[in-house]
């Protein structure tokens, strides 16, 4: 079974999905990420789906679940690189990915995480 590698960069975990994942692969990724967040104490998770051609309700649910789990473990999840056709299809399908933050590409995803981190510190200081 294909396993998606989880990369660590500073306190951010980066996952780039490059293959058409089977359902078990999707579930395995979900578990691997939760383990990695705890093991590394990462404050951010970026899931890059630039190469993903379709997101159905199963993968959509996985993204939302990862976001919820990470938030519980005090990490923010950002999904980056969603293709226009995929976004249009998800809207038509009726899937909102509730609570998942998104960015256009990896670079903007990292910038957003840094921005969110800054905002958190500012709130605590006040």
């Amino acid at each position, binding site marked *: 079974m294909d396993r998606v590698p989880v990369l660590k960069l500073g306190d951010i975990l980066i996952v780039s999905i490059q293959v*058409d*994942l*089977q*359902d*078990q692969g999707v579930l395995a990724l979900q578990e691997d990420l939760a383990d990695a967040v705890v093991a590394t104490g990462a404050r951010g998770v970026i899931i890059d789906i630039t190469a993903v*051609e*379709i*997101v*159905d*309700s*199963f993968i*959509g*649910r996985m993204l939302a679940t990862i976001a919820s789990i990470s938030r519980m473990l005090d990490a923010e999840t950002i999904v980056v690189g969603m*293709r*226009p*056709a*995929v976004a*249009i*299809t998800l809207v*038509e*399908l*009726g*899937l909102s990915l509730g609570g998942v933050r998104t960015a256009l590409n990896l670079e903007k995803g990292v910038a957003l995480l840094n921005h969110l981190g800054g905002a958190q510190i500012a709130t605590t200081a006040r």
Partner: protein
Amino acid sequence: MTASGELSIGGNSDIVLVRQRVRAAAVEVGLSLVDQTKIVTAASELARNALVYAGGGRVRIEIVRNGVKMGLRLAFDDDGPGIPDVDQALTDGWTTGNGLGLGLSGSRRLVDDFDLRSAPGEGTRVTVTKWAR
């Protein structure tokens, strides 16, 4: 190569195979990128439904013609328990499994023609068609 044909859905890996075959057929029909994505997503949902609710099934991939328009028709068949209340099954968020309840209702919004035939104990047949614009 003709993309028409029949595939059986017996396991998780078959869902991926269905997606690939439907994508190839959609390209052959000349669907736009967005329409390709929509029909492949619908196929993924319906194949998973057949697997989850009926333990497996079959899909017929067919290129169809209506006047000058070309289209892609997918017929999903299973011998599962069938659906007692079709209208209810097509409601957003209604599910007997552990999914989001978007499989049937969502797929319907992704295609141009949608036909669902089912009765308790007689399996389910879902036929969807997407026409090239």
